[in-house]
C-alpha cells in the first residue's frame, strides 16, 4: 500500500516535510505539566525551529512497500492468544502474497507456522517469516471484510467465518482474561448456555527468575510448541546467565536460546501433576499432559535429578515405608 498525502483545506501540507515552527510551548502549558518535576519549560525559546529543519533523507521519495513482515510480533506474553493474520480465509484476492492464510481456532495451521519459525533460528527475518502480520494493505483488509459483510446475512454474527486473533485485541487486561478463563473452566456446567472459553492457564516458574508467568496449554498441541514458547518467554532470564554483554552480545543473544541450554541439560522442564508430584515433561502423551498438569517449572538440571519417572515411583514407595 502506498500512502499518499491528500492536500486538504487550508493546511499547507507539503510533500517534502520540514519542521515548521509551531508554538506548542506557550507559558500556559506549564500549568498542565503532569510531571511535577520538570522545572523549566521556559526553555522553549531555545528551540530554534528553523535551525532544526528536518528533511526526510529516505532513499525513495515515497513510502516503501512493505515487503517484509512487520508489526504484531508477539511479545513474550504468556497468556495472549497467538497471532493470526487478519484476513478471512475465503478471500484470496487481496491477500498478501506469500501469506499463509490461517483460520482462527485452527491451531494446527498455526502450529505449522511455529514449527517453521523454530526452524529458522538466528536468521533475521527469513523471507516467509513468521507470517504473523496485520496486512499492511489495511485498506484491502477493510474492503475484504466489508465485502464479506455485504455477502453475509444480516444479524449480529455476520462477521466472516474465519475470525482472526490479534495480540492485545480487544483491549482487555490480561488479569481480566485470566480471571474469566479460570472461572469459566470451573463452571462450564453451571452457567447456562455459556460456552467454555477453552483456555487452560498454568503457572510457569523458573529457578532464578524474579517472577512467574502463565501459559495457556490449549494454545499448543505438542511439546515442541510448548517448549518453543517457553524458550521465547524465558530467554530474557537465561541470557544474563550466559554472561554476554556489550554490542557483541546482542547477535549472540538471539542465537543462544534456552533450548541450547536445555540441551546442554542446564535446565529441565518439569510439571506438577494432579497428585502434587513433580514429573519431567515429555513422558506422557500430550493430551494426558494437558489434563494433569497443574504447574510448570523450569528447574536447574542438578535439582531435577530425582525426577526421572522411575524416581517418582521410588519416592512414593519411600513414603509408604
Amino acid at each position, binding site marked *: 500500500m502506498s*500512502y499518499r*498525502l491528500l492536500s486538504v483545506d487550508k493546511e499547507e501540507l507539503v*510533500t517534502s516535510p520540514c*519542521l515548521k*515552527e*509551531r508554538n*506548542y*510551548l506557550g507559558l500556559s502549558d*506549564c*500549568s*498542565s*505539566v*503532569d*510531571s*511535577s*518535576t*520538570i*522545572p523549566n519549560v521556559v526553555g522553549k525559546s531555545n528551540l530554534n525551529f528553523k535551525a*532544526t529543519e528536518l528533511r*526526510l*533523507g*529516505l*532513499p525513495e521519495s515515497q513510502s516503501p512497500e*512493505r515487503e517484509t513482515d*512487520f*508489526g504484531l*510480533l508477539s*511479545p513474550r*506474553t504468556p497468556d495472549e492468544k497467538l497471532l493470526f493474520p487478519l484476513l478471512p480465509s475465503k478471500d484470496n484476492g487481496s491477500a498478501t502474497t506469500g501469506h499463509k492464510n490461517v483460520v*482462527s*481456532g485452527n491451531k494446527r495451521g498455526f502450529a505449522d507456522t511455529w514449527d517453521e519459525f523454530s526452524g529458522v533460528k538466528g536468521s*533475521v*527475518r527469513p523471507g516467509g517469516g513468521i507470517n504473523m502480520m496485520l496486512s*499492511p494493505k*489495511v485498506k484491502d483488509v477493510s474492503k475484504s*471484510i*466489508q465485502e464479506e*459483510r455485504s455477502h453475509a446475512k444480516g444479524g*449480529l*454474527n455476520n*462477521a466472516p467465518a474465519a*475470525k482472526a486473533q490479534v*495480540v*492485545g485485541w*480487544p*483491549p*482487555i487486561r*490480561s*488479569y*481480566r482474561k485470566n*480471571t*474469566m478463563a479460570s472461572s469459566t473452566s470451573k463452571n462450564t456446567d453451571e452457567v447456562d448456555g455459556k460456552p467454555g*472459553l477453552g483456555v487452560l492457564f498454568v503457572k510457569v516458574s523458573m529457578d532464578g527468575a*524474579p*517472577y*512467574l*508467568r502463565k501459559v495457556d496449554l490449549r494454545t499448543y498441541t505438542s511439546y515442541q510448541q510448548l517448549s518453543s514458547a517457553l524458550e521465547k518467554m524465558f530467554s*530474557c532470564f537465561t541470557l544474563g546467565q550466559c554472561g554476554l*554483554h556489550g554490542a557483541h552480545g546482542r*547477535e549472540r543473544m538471539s542465537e543462544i536460546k534456552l533450548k541450547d541450554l536445555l540441551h546442554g541439560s542446564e535446565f529441565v522442564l518439569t510439571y506438577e501433576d494432579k497428585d502434587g508430584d513433580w514429573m519431567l515433561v515429555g513422558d506422557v502423551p500430550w493430551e494426558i499432559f494437558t489434563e494433569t498438569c497443574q504447574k510448570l517449572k523450569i528447574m536447574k538440571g542438578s535439582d531435577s535429578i530425582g525426577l526421572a519417572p522411575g524416581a517418582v515411583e521410588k519416592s512414593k514407595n519411600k513414603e509408604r515405608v
Partner: protein
Amino acid sequence: MGLRLPSKVLEHILSFIDSNEDRNSVSLVCKSWFETERKTRKRVFVGNCYAVSPAAVAKRFPEVRSLTLKGKPHFADYNLVPDGWGGYAWPWIEAMAAKCPSLEEIRLKRMVVTDECLEKIAASFKDFKVLVLTSCEGFSTDGIAAIAATCRNLRVLELRECIVEDLGGDWLSYFPETSTSLVSLDFSCLDSEVKISDLERLVSRSPNLKSLKLNPAVTLDGLVSLLRRAPQLTELGTGSFAAQLKPEAFSKLSEAFSNCKQLQSLSGLWDVLPEYLPALYSVCPGLTSLNLSYATVRMPDLVELLRRCSKLQKLWVMDLIEDKGLEAVASYCKELRELRVFPSAPDLDEANIPLTEQGLVFVSKGCRKLESVLYFCVQFTNAALLTIARKRPNLKCFRLCVIEPFAPDYKTNEPLDKGFKAIAEGCKDLRRLSVSGLLSDKAFKYIGKHAKKVRMLSIAFAGDSDLMLHHLLSGCESLKKLEIRDCPFGDTALLEHAAKLETMRSLWMSSCFVSFGACKLLSQKMPRLNVEVIDEHPPETRPESSPVERIYIYRTVAGPRMDTPEFVWTIHKNPEIGVSHLAIK
C-alpha cells in the same frame, strides 16, 4: 518588583494550595517561590517514571509524604509491551530511602516491584502508611509479608490486579497482634488461601477498617464470619460465591449483609450463583459502586439486583446484561456517573450476546449524570453516536471498543466518522477518548479540531494515511498521551510535528509505518525526547526506511535510560555513536 513575601508567610499561603498543577505554576514565578514551594510539597506525582530521575525528585522535594509513579505505557495492559521493557521501582525506592525518610505513602502503577523493593520500603520509612500497587509485577507474597510485619502504622495495603508470585497465604499472619491501624486491605489478586482465623483476628482488632477486598479463595463461610466482625465496612470485595447452596448458608449470608449498614461499594462476586444474589438485596439501596464484571449471571437476575440500586453511581458489568438490562438501568439508576460494559466472550466467534449500541443509547438517554463510559460492543452506528453526543454533552470519558476491527456503521456501511465527530464536537469537556470501528482520516480531522480538552487518546485500526496523524498533532490542544496501534501513517506527520511531542507526556505507536530513519532523525533533533524503538530485531540490520515494530516516545529531563533490555533501542543523541543499547543487568 518590590514586594517580597517573607518565606514563612509564603509557606503558609502555599499550604492551602493542593493541586500539583497549581504548585507547578507557583514554582515558576521566581527562585524564592520555587524554593519555598519545593520544601513544602507533600504529594508528588510522576506520570512517567523515566521523565525525571529519582535522585532529582528526592533532592527537590525533601518533605514529600506521598509519591505516585507510573511506569509502563498503558498498552502494556494489553500485552503490547514485551516483558522486561522496564519500569523498575527500585531506583525510586532507593533514592527516596536515602533522602526522604518521612515518606508515608507509595502508589505505583504498571511498575516492576521486587521483594527487595518491598523489604526496603519496610525498613526505610518509619511511619509508612499506604502502599497501593496497581497492575504491578515482580514480587512475591514474601515481600508483602515484610510490609505487613514491619510497618507498624500501616493503614492501606492494596494489591490491585497485580501479578504476584504466590508462595502461600502465610503473609497474612505476619501482621503483628499489636497492629490495629488498618483501614484498607485488598488482596483480591492473590490465589492462595489465607488462614481464615488470622484474617478474622486481624479484622476484629482493626476498628478503622473500612475497605476489605478478599481473594477468591475465601469461602462464603469465611465471608460471613468477617462481615460479622466488620459491620462498619464501606467497601467490600467478596470472595468466591461458588459454594454449594445450603439454606442456612443463604440466610446467614443475608443476615450478615443486612448488618452492614454503611456498605457503599461491592465487588468480587466471582462465580456468583444467581441464587445467592438475593442475599445482597438489603445493601442495594445504599450502594454507590457495584462491580459485577466477574459475575457470570444472566440479565433477569442482574435486573432484579440493579432495580434496587437507586443510588448507584458506578456500574461495571458484562455484556450479559444485554440491551434490555441496560434499559432497566436507565430507568432505575438515575444517579449513574460511570458505566463499563465488558465482553463476556472476547473471542469474536462466540459473540452471541444481544448487546448492541442500543444499550448504551438507553443509558445515555436515561442517566443524566453519565460522564464516563467504557463500552465493548460488536458493532455500532453513527446514529447511536449522534444520539449519545446529543443527550450527554457532559461526557468526560468516552471509550468505545467496537470489537470487530474496521467495522463500519452496520446499518449504512459508512465509516463511523460522523459519529465520532458528534462526540468530539458535542462533548466539550471530553478528557479521554478511545475510538474504534472503521474510521477515515476525516474522523481525525474532526477530533483534532474539536477535542480541545482531550488529554488521552487511544486509536486502533483506523485512518487512511499520514493525514490522520497530522490532524491530531496539529489540533488536540490538550493532548498529553497518544497511543496508536495498527494505523497506516508514516514518518511525515510525525517529523513535521516533532515539537508537539515535547508538550505531551508520551506517544506510543505499534504496527504503524514509521521508519527507523525517522526515529533516528527525531531523536537526534529533539534533545528532550527519548525515542525508544522496541523491536525484536536490531534496526541497524535493515534499511533505514523499513518500519519498526513499536515506538515509544516521551519527554524527559533525565536523558536516555540506562536499564533498557536487549529489544529496546535508544538512538543516541550523538549521531556518530548511532544506535546504542545500554543495558545494565
